[in-house]
Structure formats: structure tokens, C-alpha cells
């Protein structure tokens, strides 16, 4: 039962990374890619109907984590107190800047929210990578099972780490680069004319950065957390994750010059999910590894809810997720196709 729920939560988070990943990515590159007012409106319109639903995957994954692994929810959330609060504030800023921008007909108002949108999206992308880096590296769990991480200490992933150290920052930059690539590919898929062209150019550059950072990231992970390598060596089948990730990156490059941008975008989805699931595989059966000598790793078995709760949960979760997939299919199908450059005289 434990492994079922571990992979359920991992899959929900992967879905979150793929879906909210592209609208975060669009946000992070928005100021540079979309230059004129119609282009900015066009860029926002590509994500307008879907960004909120994408973000719900985070909320739903959080709720699922809460009831399936209450102990993890309590310890990790209170331990990552400050960065989580910062993430919440960034989510607030990003949400209001997407929606409120168009509600008030003043160019200054629009410029301001453009800046906020780009800033908050970029930082969120970095924080996602930092968060994953922290979970992979481990936290200083105390004798009572709790911990509290400061934002930074000496920037070294040793026994007394902070949220930010060279390893997690590297993770953050990799996430920013990968999501920028993802967002650029989404815009290349959904936008037209100038915006589409610039998105393709940007994707080419972001691709190089992502390849370079991924290449650095693998040995860095082994250096920061040697247990990852041994976990992989125990189950050599897991090497399929980095292999898929690498081949997806190659596919992104090969298909980028085609007319249809769908294969590139899907390959980018494949890259993100195999990276994320690969990290999850490296962790399992640990949920939160301990660094230092005081406490021990928090494992799936320790954190798991009672069996009856989980059995009931499996029933409604399956039903609910089928419905959710259905809603998303309907919405993405209805909003399929390119988003034209808006005609300024017409309001939607």
C-alpha cells in the first residue's frame, strides 16, 4: 500500500510539473519573448484558460500527501516553513498578475503586472528545483523527528545545511532552464507570427543550457548524495530514467525544426517527467532522507496512514482522478489550436 501511494503522489507531482511547468516557463521568459502589447495579451491568452487548473495539481497532490502521509506533511511542511511561505507569496503574486492585468485599462497597470508575473514565475521555477534538491540531499532531522531549515547556512550540503546550498541552487537553475525551455516550446506550439518565431529561437538557446546543466546535475547529485547512486546500482533498471531523459532532450532538438511543434513539446514533457520520477526512484522507500547523526530517514512505512484510510482513499482517488483527466481533456481539446494575435478593437 505504501508504494502505491508513494507513486500516486509522485505521479500527481509529475503532472503538476509538466502542466504548471509550461505556464511557469511562459511566465519566466515572458518579458523577453512577448514584446508588444498584443503579443503579451496573446502569450497570456495561451495559458489564461488553463493555468489555474494546472496549479490545482499542486493543491490536490498536497491534499493527497496530507492524508496518505500525515507524518511527512507535518514534519516536512513545518521544517521547510520559510521557503514554503515564500512559495505561497509568489503563487499569490503570480495568480493576481495573470488575471488582474487585463481588468484595468491603463498601460502602467499592465506594465507593473507584466513585471510581477515574470519575476514570480521565474522565482517559482527556481524554488521548485531547490525544493527537489533539498529532498534529494536530505534534511537535518532531529531526535524527535522534526527539523527546521534556515534559508541558508554555509551554502555547502553538509551536516548543517540550509535551503540554499550549491547543490540545491544548481537544481534551481536547472529547473529554471528546463521550464523556460518547456514554456518556450509551449508558446511555439500555441502562438503565431512574431511570438512563435522568438519562442523557437529562445527554445534553441534554452535547450543548450538545459543539456549543459543536466550533464552537470548528474555527477553533482552523486557527489551531494552518494546514496542515490547505490540505490540506482541496486536496481539497474532505474537507469532507464536518465536514458529516457537524455533521449527526450535529443528528440526536442531533432523535432524543433518541424512545422508541428507538438513532438518537441511532448518530448519536453517526457524529459521533465523522467527527471522527476528518476529522482523519486532514487529516494524510494525513503520520503525524506536525514543528514547528520541525530535522527534517521523518514520512510514510507513510518509516515503512512492507517490501512483502512488508505483503502477508502484508493476508491475515491481513482474515481476522482478519472474525472479530472476527463475535465482536462475537454478543456485542452476545446482550446486546441493556435491563439491568434488579438485584434485590439475586439474584446473577448
Amino acid at each position, binding site marked *: 500500500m505504501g508504494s502505491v501511494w508513494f507513486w500516486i503522489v509522485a505521479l500527481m507531482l509529475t503532472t503538476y510539473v509538466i502542466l504548471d511547468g509550461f505556464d511557469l516557463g511562459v511566465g519566466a521568459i515572458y518579458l523577453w519573448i512577448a514584446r508588444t502589447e498584443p503579443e503579451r495579451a496573446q502569450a497570456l491568452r495561451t495559458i*489564461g*484558460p488553463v493555468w*489555474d*487548473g494546472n*496549479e*490545482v495539481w*499542486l*493543491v*490536490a497532490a*498536497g*491534499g*493527497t500527501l*496530507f*492524508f*496518505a502521509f*500525515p*507524518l511527512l*506533511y*507535518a*514534519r516536512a*511542511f*513545518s*521544517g*521547510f*516553513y*520559510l521557503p514554503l511561505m515564500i512559495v*505561497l*507569496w509568489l*503563487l*499569490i503574486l503570480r*495568480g*493576481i498578475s495573470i*488575471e*488582474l492585468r487585463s*481588468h*484595468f485599462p491603463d498601460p502602467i497597470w499592465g506594465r507593473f503586472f507584466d513585471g510581477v508575473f515574470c519575476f514570480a514565475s521565474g522565482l517559482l521555477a527556481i524554488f521548485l528545483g531547490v525544493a527537489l534538491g533539498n529532498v534529494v540531499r536530505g534534511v537535518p532531522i*532531529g531526535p*524527535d523527528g*522534526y*527539523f*527546521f531549515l534556515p534559508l541558508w547556512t554555509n551554502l555547502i550540503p553538509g551536516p548543517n545545511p540550509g535551503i540554499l546550498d550549491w547543490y540545491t541552487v544548481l537544481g534551481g537553475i536547472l529547473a529554471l532552464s528546463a521550464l523556460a525551455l518547456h514554456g518556450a516550446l509551449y508558446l511555439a506550439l500555441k502562438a503565431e507570427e512574431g511570438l512563435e518565431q522568438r519562442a523557437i529561437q529562445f527554445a534553441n538557446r534554452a535547450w543548450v543550457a538545459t543539456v549543459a546543466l543536466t550533464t552537470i546535475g548528474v555527477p553533482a547529485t552523486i557527489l551531494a548524495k552518494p546514496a542515490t547512486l547505490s540505490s540506482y546500482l541496486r536496481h539497474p533498471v532505474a537507469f532507464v530514467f536518465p536514458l529516457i531523459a537524455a533521449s527526450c532532450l535529443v528528440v526536442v532538438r531533432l523535432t524543433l525544426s518541424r512545422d508541428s511543434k507538438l513532438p518537441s513539446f511532448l518530448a519536453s514533457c517526457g524529459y521533465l517527467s523522467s527527471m522527476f520520477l528518476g529522482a523519486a526512484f532514487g529516494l524510494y522507500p525513503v520520503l525524506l532522507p536525514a543528514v547528520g547523526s541525530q535522527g534517521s530517514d523518514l520512510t514510507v512505512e513510518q509516515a503512512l*496512514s*492507517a490501512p*483502512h*484510510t488508505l483503502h*477508502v*482513499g484508493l476508491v*475515491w*482517488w481513482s474515481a*476522482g482522478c478519472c*474525472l*479530472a483527466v476527463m*475535465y*482536462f481533456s*475537454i*478543456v485542452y481539446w476545446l*482550446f486546441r489550436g493556435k491563439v491568434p494575435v488579438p485584434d485590439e*478593437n*475586439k*474584446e473577448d
Partner: protein
Amino acid sequence: MNSLTLDRIQFAFTITYHYLFPQLTMGLALLILILKTLALRTCDLETSRNYDDSARFWARLFAINFLLGVVTGVPMEFQFGTNWAEFSRRTGGVIGMPIAVEGIFSFFLESAFLGLFLFGEKRLSQRLHWLSAFLVFLGSWISGFFIIVTNAFMQHPVGYRILNGGLFEVVSFRDLLLNPWAWLEYAHNMCAAVVTASFFMSAVGALYLLQRRQGPYGRTFLRIGVIAGMISCTAQVFPTGDLHGKYLAKHQPAAIAAMEGLFHTEKGAGMVIVGQPNYDSETIDNPLVVNKLLSFLIYGTTSAEVEGLDHFPKDQWPSTLPLLFYSYHIMAGLGTWFGGLMALATFLLWRGRLYSSRWVLWPILLSWPLPYIATTAGWMTAEIGRQPWIVYGLVRTAQGYSPHVSASNDLFTLLGFLGMYSVLSLLWIILVYSHVQSGPLVAYRNRVLSVTA
């Protein structure tokens, strides 16, 4: 201030602020659905267009409020873990369930179809657009239900058992969902949401009529707002408020004694209408009392004995007693005002004189903030009344907070939320004001443009 106090203030502040938005959007979702239904059902083209423009106007206001509800709502879920770690650790196996169900069954529905409802009017047929409005309504009302199931478990725990080590486990998911407390609280709360939205809609209608502009829309808003307001205000008191009060008296007698300021057990207890509870002398200062009313309201007879606070050990008294007393009285007092105002407005509407009765339009306009205050006061009554328990009778609030988050970190984030939410309030005021000022005719003009283009 210690960590516990700051955790409590932060949760109270963020949840109160958050709930300003859903209470409007849940009510508005219903009213917009009514407008869309009327637009579909009306054969007369001009009237049908009036309803459609009205729906579009309110959908824009809905979107602003829904957004603020979403962005202030995400911190609520996170804070269970960040600030209330011990509570989450112990009860997460139970309350995590309705919270997860809420995300999966309602937030997906709501967010997916809100995008369709707001952006898809041209892509969808009128019937499908109506359907998307219906699904947004359904999603938001389901969401309200599951969050109330969560709260009801904290107020009146059912369907659980406690394992070794104090962890809670769900024994019956069915009992958890069928918790009578949840259904009473849900009914009372959803009525309140419709009251908030009806007052908001009638106030905008009254404003337009007072300004002598947007006449047809002003009359539509006022008519729909007043009728929905009359129905919801009545249901708010009877049966939902009445039943909820009786159930509360049965299961949280200490809370009801504190709400009513009843320090001493009495036969034929009277009800204090106004007064200030004096914690030291255990009396009410400046009381205005209706004799025997409390006994009658709770037990249906004027002679029944009502347990006062002296019946309970002091460590089980709700901790901020005067605040509880005032919250409850503000809620009940405003509820009475709402009922009276809406009854008068309904009467005038029926006689055909409402639209020109400026002396009634003024109080309708000025009353729009009051349902927010009443709802907040009602929730404060419920939540302060539950104290000193975080799960009534089982876990004390002081046992629930995060042990390793220091008071200074709590204060840091509390100040952050205060600052962030001040900005949101300013934005809300600017946007709602400018939107109401420009009015539905802008929506109308855009429709004409898009038809001719």
C-alpha cells in the same frame, strides 16, 4: 507573544481574509446560474439579452473574487502542515481525507470549467455555456461541503478511532461525510453565502438606480438580489440557524453558555440582547434581557434549565470569552437587520414601488458590507466556541501547533501576510469600483461590436 498565539493569529487572519472571497463567489455562482437560466428560458429577445449581459457583468466580478479566493486559499492548506504540524500529524489520517477529496473532486471541476465559462462563450453553444456555469457552481458548492466536513470533524468528531500514540484513523468514511454537524453547518453557511451575494447584487442594482443610469440592469440586479436575499435570509434563521443552534446547545453546551453570556445555570433562562460580559464578576454589564427566551429557543419551553458556564471547569471555557459573546451577538443582530430590510424590499417589489423608493435603495446600497461582517462573526462564533479544543473534547489547541517553528519566524510570516493581503485589498477595491462604475453597458457594447465585426 509565544509561538502558539502567533500561529493562532496567523491562521485566524488568513482564513478570515480568505473566506471574504468564497462567500461571495459561492453565492454568485448560484445567482449567475439563475441569470443564465433566465436568459435561456426567456423568449423575449431584449429581456434575454439583458439577462445575458448581466450574467457576463457578474462573471467578471466573479472572476476577480474567485482569483483572490484561489490565491488566498492555497496558503490555508499549506498552513495545516507549516503551522499546525502536531495537529496534522495526529489527525491527518482523518481530516486529510476531506481536504484531498476537495482538491480532487471540486477544485479540478471548478478550475477547468471556470476557464471555459469565462473564455469560452464564443466557442460554446448557449446551452454548453450554461452547462459550464452549472459545473462551476457545482464545483464551488462541493468544495464548500468538503471543507465544512473537515471543520465539522474538529467541532464534532465522528467516524474515527484513536490508535496507539494518539494518531487518528478513519473508521467510517460514510459517518464522516454524514456527520449531522457538517450538514447543519453546511446549510447555514451556504445560505450565508447566498445572503452575501444577494446583498452585493442588490447593492449594485440600488447604486445604478440611485445614480439614474444603467436602468434596465439596475432593476434586474435589484429584483434578483432582493428575491434571493429574502429567501436566503429567511432560511438563514429558520430552519438552518435554529437547528444549528439547538444541535450546538446539545453537543457544545459550554460554547452556547459563553455565546449567550450565561454564567450561571438557570431555569427559564433569559436571552441577553445587548451587554458586556464581565469575566471577573461573572455577570453581564448593562444587560438588556428578554426573559425566558433562551430556554424557549433551545428547548421549546420557557421553563427549561439551561447549563451556565458554572457547570464547566474553567479550563474548558472558551478562551476569549467576550470576543465569542460579541461575535455571536453581531452575527445575530445583523441577521435580524437583513431579514427586516429584505422583507421591506420584497414588499415594495411586490407592490411595484421598489425601484423608485430611494429611501429603501439607500440602506440596500449601504448594507453590502454587512453580510461579510455577519459571516465572519458567525465563523468566529463557531471557532472561538470550539476553544480550547482543536478537535472538540479530544485534542487541545495548545497541543496542535508546530513545535520547531519559532515565534519570530511566525511573526515574520504573519507580517508578510498582513502586507500581502493589504495589497490585495487595495487591488480589490480599485477593480470592483472601476468595474461597477463602467457597468454592464460596456459588456453590451462589446457584444454589438463583435456581432457587427
